[in-house]
């Protein structure tokens, strides 16, 4: 364990050593004329082996930025700082933000792979799928052609694609759902220990989304990697995650087990999100929206960044941004919240 | 990098002469060098043609003497109305066959076929023996001898077939305007002989031709080949701007191009001598009498002549080679003493710049000054365009400068440079106010040709043929000496064989020209030909050598010098 006692225990999910330990992670974007905005503002997170963590939040709260920052893929004007420690299963410890050149290249995809938001454009349009598979394997292993073919075929079949035809296709010849699944297959080529999925099903039709979700369930069950699942769709988080973290304005403001989060959210923002999602089963639901919109990063409200939209807000909320603190002590069921009024927050629904 | 050129540079024993003259390679340029045929490899005016197909003789303009080349002699029999040319004996073509009178006859039959001017005066041509050709004269004229003697003699072996057909047709009084004649004429134009034989001391080296340069190699069997010490002649292709860098590079020994003042300066500073032979012509201002009747008043033209500083104009345009005309006689100042008596010369007004006189004349003509601008008698502001060909390095500044001078005096002139191809049709069509065109003639020393150029060419006389009126200056005029029909006077000036009679007419025309100023000659052009001494060529004729009075495009003094051995390699 690299964490000290000053770190909220809540960042721990299950027991044992976290696979990925993120401390005070910050990302800044330089915007015109010398100013910068902080898209991620000090984020602490632990990811344990085999765990599936969903990161939810409104658009613009920094989810993608966080994912990119983790893989050091930020655009030229973005800069990540803080500490990201990756503990390989062979015991080696990597300081991700200090990686360079070859080491960084190896960390990417072999240790941590990412499935991107909008897989539509994730493929080089002039390369066949085969080319993508070969490029990826060649970059990391000395695998023979034969081996690459076999491995790709195996994974493609795993995501329910016909390898014979898909390998020879150009990306544009595949439908969106197929491309998304090819990307998932490709992300698994090197058996990474962490898979980051950034809205992998947004922009897909519902039936296609269903098949991708099913595939994800299945491959995770078989391969047992850890997963960070980024989405603004809470329903998907409910289905796919073991643990959920809510992000707001570049910070995690609540995290806990999936059932805890959905049935007993303790942050007004999480509560608001859940209340705003229409379920499909049952009668006309009683929905509520969160008033206003997310704050501009360049001009964050004082104190708790959520307070202008919060119905629980008091004057006290404007004073300081509340830290993320644990509210349960049950092992394996950590639940942390960054809200001084968390005790007052109740969903009023319960597990079915 | 370039391949080692095997045809240039002066290495070892070869003694090259480097000249420059534009030419065209096949398919455009070709070796049909018949008279009047278009796009022969070199223009007929190329001085270098005299090294390949020499003519009967060449002329010393200053001494008025013939230097016999292919011919041994030429004799005019006034009574018999014949001119007899005797060829040198022992002349051979480059294939070894002898040059005979048949070749001359063939050549002149081609002249007939191609409607050359010589046949205006000739009525027949025949050979009496291997070296004698007898020309029968139809219309006597002093200019005929030149037509005969300066015609390059072409090989009957190459052109004979055409010449025979032409002769048959001529004798049968066939017409060239229709039927067989027309066809023959057209077909000959398309005739493309290959590797023709030559009679001159140099022959084409076909293999060496590129579009940049051609080499003429020594033809040891050619005319006077033993007297010429050069082993070959390299000719650089191109107009002025193309050859200037080559000249600067000292790759050219002598160039006949008209160079810009700036280039001339550079040449001088890098060691070239500048030869300034007279060209017997120059630019003049032409007025449009149709659209601007105010010019019809002779005082206006005289005033304009007084306004202009023609020295400045010449210097600006051509430096030391642009010499203001002093006789304003309508033909070259150099020739004036030959044709006009001293007494009559004194009557010729030089029109030195004199603004007061100009003002007087204009006022007398009814012009008024309003502010610093002149108004015509019609009360309109005096504002005109001046048209000149953009490309001509000398005429362009001449036009510009004349415009500036007139504008400064209060006659507003708009400069209008046009493409040189467009200039002549426009002037013929009368599409101009004032235009720059040539006065004088550089291919013939006889003033007749100058007056034809001055008074006929861009006037209704010849312009009518293209449907225009040109400047439309009436040739029936009245001078202080009384009424004069300029056309009649000029025509008579070339007719007959009586020189004195001709002089009378030339003088009359000159005096009338000087007074009436149908056109205003600005200056007389002298060549500014760079000549490089000491590199390949030892010496060029000295500046005071009378041979430098030869017009370089008519009887080139360098070529004549080569034949005479005066221009020799180092």
């Amino acid at each position, binding site marked *: 364990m690299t964490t000290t006692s000053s770190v909220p225990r809540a960042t721990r999910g299950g027991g044992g050593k976290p696979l990925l330990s993120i401390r005070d992670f910050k990302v800044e974007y330089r915007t015109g004329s010398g100013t910068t905005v902080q898209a991620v503002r000090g984020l602490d997170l632990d990811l344990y082996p085999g765990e599936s963590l969903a990161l939810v939040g*409104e*658009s613009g709260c920094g989810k993608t930025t966080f994912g990119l920052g983790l893989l050091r893929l930020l655009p030229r004007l973005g800069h990540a700082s803080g500490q990201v420690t990756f503990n390989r299963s062979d015991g080696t410890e990597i300081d991700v933000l200090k990686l360079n050149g070859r080491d960084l290249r190896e960390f990417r995809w072999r240790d941590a792979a990412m499935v991107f938001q909008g897989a539509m454009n994730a493929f080089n349009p002039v390369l066949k799928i085969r080319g993508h598979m070969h490029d990826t394997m060649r970059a990391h292993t000395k695998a023979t052609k034969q081996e690459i073919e076999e491995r790709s075929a195996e994974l493609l079949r795993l995501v*329910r694609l016909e390898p014979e035809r898909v390998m020879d296709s150009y990306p544009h010849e595949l*439908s969106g*759902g197929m491309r998304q699944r090819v990307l998932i297959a490709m992300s698994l080529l090197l058996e990474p220990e962490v898979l980051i999925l950034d809205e992998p099903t947004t922009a897909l*039709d*519902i*039936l*296609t*989304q*269903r*098949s991708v*979700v099913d595939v994800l369930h299945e491959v995770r069950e078989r391969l047992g990697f850890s997963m960070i699942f980024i989405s*603004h*769709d*809470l*329903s*998907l988080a*409910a*289905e796919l995650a073991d643990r959920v973290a809510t992000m707001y304005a570049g910070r995690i403001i609540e995290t806990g087990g*999936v*059932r805890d989060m*959905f*049935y007993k959210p303790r942050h007004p923002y999480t509560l*608001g*999100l*859940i209340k*705003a*999602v*229409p*379920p*499909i*089963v*049952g*009668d*006309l*639901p009683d*929905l*509520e*929206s*969160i*008033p206003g*919109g*997310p704050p501009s990063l360049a001009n964050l409200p004082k104190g708790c960044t959520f307070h202008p939209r919060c119905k629980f807000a008091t004057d006290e909320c404007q004073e300081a941004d509340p830290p993320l603190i644990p509210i349960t002590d049950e092992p394996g069921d950590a639940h942390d919240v960054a809200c001084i009024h968390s005790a007052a927050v109740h969903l009023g629904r319960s*597990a*079915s | 990098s370039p391949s080692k050129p095997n045809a240039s540079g002066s290495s070892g024993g070869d003694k090259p002469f480097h000249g420059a003259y534009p030419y065209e390679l096949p398919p455009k340029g070709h070796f049909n060098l018949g008279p009047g045929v278009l796009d022969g490899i070199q223009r007929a005016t190329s001085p270098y043609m005299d090294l390949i197909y020499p003519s009967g003789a060449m002329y010393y303009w200053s001494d008025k003497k013939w230097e016999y080349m292919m011919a041994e002699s030429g004799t005019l029999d006034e009574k018999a109305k014949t001119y007899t040319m005797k060829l040198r004996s022992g002349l051979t073509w480059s294939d070894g066959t002898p040059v005979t009178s048949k070749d001359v006859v063939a050549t002149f039959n081609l002249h007939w076929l191609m409607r050359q001017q010589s046949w205006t005066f000739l009525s027949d041509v025949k050979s009496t023996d291997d070296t004698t050709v007898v020309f029968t004269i139809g219309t006597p004229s002093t200019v005929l001898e030149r037509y005969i003697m300066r015609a390059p003699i072409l090989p009957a072996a190459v052109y004979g077939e055409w010449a025979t057909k032409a002769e048959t047709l001529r004798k049968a009084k066939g017409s060239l305007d229709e039927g067989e004649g027309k066809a023959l004429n057209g077909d000959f134009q398309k005739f493309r002989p290959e590797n023709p034989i030559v009679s001159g001391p140099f022959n084409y080296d076909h293999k060496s031709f590129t579009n940049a340069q051609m080499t003429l190699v020594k033809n040891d069997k050619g005319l006077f080949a033993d007297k010429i010490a050069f082993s070959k002649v390299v000719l650089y292709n191109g107009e002025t701007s193309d050859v200037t860098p080559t000249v600067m590079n000292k790759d050219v020994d002598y160039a006949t191009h008209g160079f810009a003042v700036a280039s001339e300066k550079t040449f001088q500073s890098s060691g070239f001598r500048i030869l300034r032979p007279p060209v017997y012509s120059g630019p003049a201002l032409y007025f449009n009498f149709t659209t601007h009747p105010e010019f019809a008043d002779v005082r206006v033209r005289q005033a304009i002549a007084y306004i202009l500083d023609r020295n400045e104009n010449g210097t600006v345009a051509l430096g030391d080679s642009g010499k203001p005309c002093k006789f304003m006689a309508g033909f070259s100042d150099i020739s004036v003493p030959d044709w006009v008596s001293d007494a009559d010369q004194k009557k010729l007004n030089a029109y030195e710049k004199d603004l007061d006189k100009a003002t007087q004349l204009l006022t007398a003509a009814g012009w008024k000054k309003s502010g610093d601008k002149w108004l015509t008698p019609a009360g309109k502001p005096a504002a005109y365009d001046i048209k000149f060909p953009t490309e001509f390095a000398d005429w362009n500044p001449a036009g510009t400068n004349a415009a500036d001078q007139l504008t400064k005096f209060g006659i507003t002139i708009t400069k209008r440079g046009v493409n040189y191809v467009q200039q002549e049709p426009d002037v013929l069509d009368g599409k101009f106010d004032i235009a720059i065109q040539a006065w004088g003639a550089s291919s013939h020393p006889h003033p007749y040709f100058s007056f034809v150029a001055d008074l006929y060419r861009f006037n209704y006389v010849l312009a009518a043929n293209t449907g225009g009126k040109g400047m439309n200056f009436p040739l029936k005029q009245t001078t202080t000496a009384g009424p004069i029909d300029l056309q009649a006077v000029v025509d008579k000036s070339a007719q007959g064989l009586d020189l004195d009679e001709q002089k009378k007419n030339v003088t009359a025309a000159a005096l009338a020209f000087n007074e009436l100023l149908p056109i205003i000659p600005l200056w007389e052009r002298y060549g500014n030909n760079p000549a490089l001494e000491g590199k390949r060529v030892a010496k060029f004729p000295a500046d005071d050598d009378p041979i430098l009075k030869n017009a370089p495009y008519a009887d080139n003094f360098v070529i004549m010098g080569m034949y005479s051995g005066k221009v020799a390699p180092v």
Partner: protein
Amino acid sequence: MKGTLQLDGVSQVFDTKAGPIRAVDQGNLSINPGEVLCLVGESGSGKTTAARMAAGLTRPSSGTVRYEGTDIWSLRKNEFKTFRRSVQYVHQDPYASLNPTRTIQQTLTAPLLKHGVVKGNKAAVERATELLAKVDLTPPENYLSKYPHQLSGGQRQRVAVARALTLDPKIIIADESTSMLDVSIRISVLAMLGRLRDELGVGFLFITHDLAIAKYFGWRGRTAVMYLGRVVEFGPTPRIINAPTHPYTRALIDAIPEPDPDLTRTKNAESLRSLEIPSLAHLPPGCAFHPRCGRFEDGLCDGAVPQLLAVRDDQAAACHVVQRDGAA
């Protein structure tokens, strides 16, 4: 069934490089003021095409679009204008549907002045202010002089709605109007639209691919499910959501995850035979859904194209099997 705006057997055929495609085939829909009709279906099923025909933006290849009983394409210029003003459209993308070079005020007052809804600039501004208040943009004065890029997505979409309201339309066609908005904002915009329906009596043709949203907004209305250009199921929204009959509708509803960890993990999906959506240019014979349908019956489903027929109360489905066996 007669509606104020009615689509009678409309089809739209596009000529594409791959051959002619029937984006909408024999569609029948009708909307009345104060009513909500939801049109749901996957991408490419022809929702937008149908909506554009309803709005008079494109002319159907066959069939008629009627407004108050008359074919809109036989209307005279003036009458067509009346129709135009009565049926308005709210686009999907709030970032593209407002002119970036015009202020909110200019955007809102232009139609008011052009059509003489109010007299004079001052009155127009007043009316624009009212409209902004109606779409919950308060205080309205703050927004009048703003440019679209100074507003958030939700705010822009509200302006777009306000613009649609300028000419007092009877019917608003909302094509995926909330799908680009965040969940929290989406609900408030929907609530606002619901209020407009109730207060102003505006009818909605509400297009979405999200059945949960259709359910929420169209609970008191009807829903039509489209698949590859045809309406395959139609009925009151609660029935479509809670008791779908067509295998396609069922598959859709089953595939939707629930915002409830326990519930969503125990859901059973309708089985499908294929994930591949046929191309419109090469539709399978018979029922277009048959290659994917778990209830496919050889000979029945790939024969004739199923018609949309009542299967239960006022619920209709275009499925041979359901029509034969009756709704479960």
